[in-house]
């Protein structure tokens, strides 16, 4: 696995209030990986599209489901990564992912798995390119501040849950 010597213990989070559904995140991913998007988006309501980045789960079900141990978890760096060379395209990871993040349409007959752009020092391209700053690459401290996974807070009535 390529490494630039930077510990990745950060996560991608979406600030719903700022997302305009332009899919620049997907375009950034496609432009890097020759047309293969490793971030997905979900239509929510009539006009709203929300990016679905990989959560890099603490206990990744995609890795557990992989029959050839192609998907692995790097505990130190917090990344769930995939060696595309050995992937046979069985789609087990796609079925196992509880968030539907892995694309059901195989490209080059292999599953596409986000690696948080570990080849790039500035972090994932999707977050770097996000036009409105909705998609952010934040560390654990910032996640606590944003209460990621605990509450959905929004200024827009559409998203208000709490």
């Amino acid at each position, binding site marked *: 696995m390529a490494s630039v010597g930077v510990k990745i213990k950060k996560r991608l989070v979406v600030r719903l209030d700022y997302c305009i559904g332009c899919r620049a995140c997907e375009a950034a991913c496609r432009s*890097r990986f020759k047309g293969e998007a490793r971030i997905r988006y979900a239509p929510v309501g009539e006009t709203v599209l929300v990016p679905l980045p990989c959560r890099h789960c603490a206990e990744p079900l995609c890795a557990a489901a992989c029959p050839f141990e192609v998907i692995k978890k790097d505990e130190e760096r917090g990344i769930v990564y995939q060696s595309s060379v050995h992937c046979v395209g069985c789609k087990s990871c796609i079925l196992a992912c509880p968030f539907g993040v892995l694309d059901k349409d195989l490209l080059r007959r292999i599953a596409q798995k986000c690696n948080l752009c570990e080849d790039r020092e500035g972090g994932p391209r999707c977050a770097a390119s996000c036009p409105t700053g909705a998609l952010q690459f934040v560390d654990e401290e910032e996640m606590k501040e944003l209460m990621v996974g605990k509450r959905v807070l929004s200024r827009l009535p*559409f998203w208000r849950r709490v």
Partner: protein
Amino acid sequence: MMSEVKRSTCVMCRNGCQLGIVFDGYQYRMEYLAAVAPNNGRTCPRGNSANVVIDHPKRLGYPLLDGKEITWEKAFALMKNWHEAVKPEEIAVVYSRGAGAADIGLVRGFAAALGTDNLVCGYLEPDNAFRYRLAGVKPATLDDLAASRATLLVGDVFSTSPVAAKGIIEARYADKQSRMVVIDSIKTRQAGFAHIFIQPKPGTEFLVLAGIAGLIDPKLKVDIDGVATRTGVPRRQMEEAAKILKPGVNGLVAGAASLGRVSEPYWHSIFAQILALKAEKPFVGFGEALVPDGKMGFGKLQELVAAGRIKLLFWFGGLHPYSYPELFPELNRVEFRVATSIFRPAKPLPGLVLPVPSEFEKTGRGESVWGEVKFEPLAKPVSGTRTLADIVSQFGAVKEMAGESYQRVKLEEVTAQLPQALSKHLGTAATTEGNLYWLLGRKEAIGVGGFFEPEDEIILHPADAQKLAVREDDFVKVKSKTGERQFCVKVLPVVSPGTATVGVNAHQNRALFPVEVDAGTGEAKIPPAKVEIWRVSA
């Protein structure tokens, strides 16, 4: 091997974003320049396509004659022979997007050197109408965006300039008094941010602008009830918008205009600016390019071509030859044709197609909506391409002739035309019947060049889907005066009943929208199209 990051201004729209490109020895990659204004590394899908454009497998690297490869020597010899066979008045020179300011200066000089007055702007997108600048209107700055507490967006501003959306959204959330009004015939994501969303009938946004301006300044004498009837927008909604936009509140009027969505580009631009003037707000018109006027309107060129008075046509610029496929049958009447292109045409075209470098591979200068910008080459030109200067120099020395980007318009001139313009449009019918529908153009940034999104989808209103007996993922055929195409159906109530929408970044979708001539300006326009839609099996 990792080389240095090359920096330039993005050419895909007029927001003036700064891009970085790295060549790693194998492929070009985007780099996001977090410390560089105005976009601080943020890049929309159009900007993200820079490396795709540079590296695209369909880039043209040799001249084509009737679709077959020829050498540059033969192409130049043919051009000279054709030139000798015609009179100067039988030559037309057209320039479009893809030719920078210096290139357009050269084209002007080239037309002068050939002795023809048939110099025409071939960029027909409605956003080019933002080059008309109404005297007295303050151009918006980035600070105005941040300080705005009463924002009016007309057209799909967020899709046209996603990077500018950041400032607009931040201003929207800045305090509880901050208000946003959106006017658009399609309900897009930006409508979700609006306090008032106004959805007029197709192509009538400019009438709503006139109505709101008329409510702010009754001296304009706008027939508000007439506007309400024609646009389908209740008077109450316009009154609420006028209240939000009243003078004395920091605000902003921002416009966008997409092909197949705006019926009157000139009035769309002018009414947005009149409203900005009356509401005492700065104005910004977002668009993909700003291409200055030629010596005559595109409509006049169409007349000359139809009359058989043009024998040799030069068309410079454009991602594809002649830019608009709906014009192909018309332009085929011209005996000798020379076009430049960066991509290989989808189908063989009669005449010469010459490969040129893309805008990402050129040096130049231009204007973004926020001020002057410079362009630096992000990559070497594709092998086999020749610059426009090389091509025109085959006819002798050509001198660059500068011109004005903007065309100034005085309020008095416009207000004199207002009653006539309004009565003309208030009198036209807005509905279709039978299986005829209005087809609207949607220009989402993700659809750029079909690199990221194929745009083979049509959005239908649920009532129309029921009428056509189609469901999500079924197939329909769409036929207009100029083309026919099959689409996959998506059913969403984001358009009004009787209206459908398709993406118009895709070259083949554009062919569904006929090019019309604006009687007032003599320029071409591409309004919403009347189409037939019927169900087909896959």
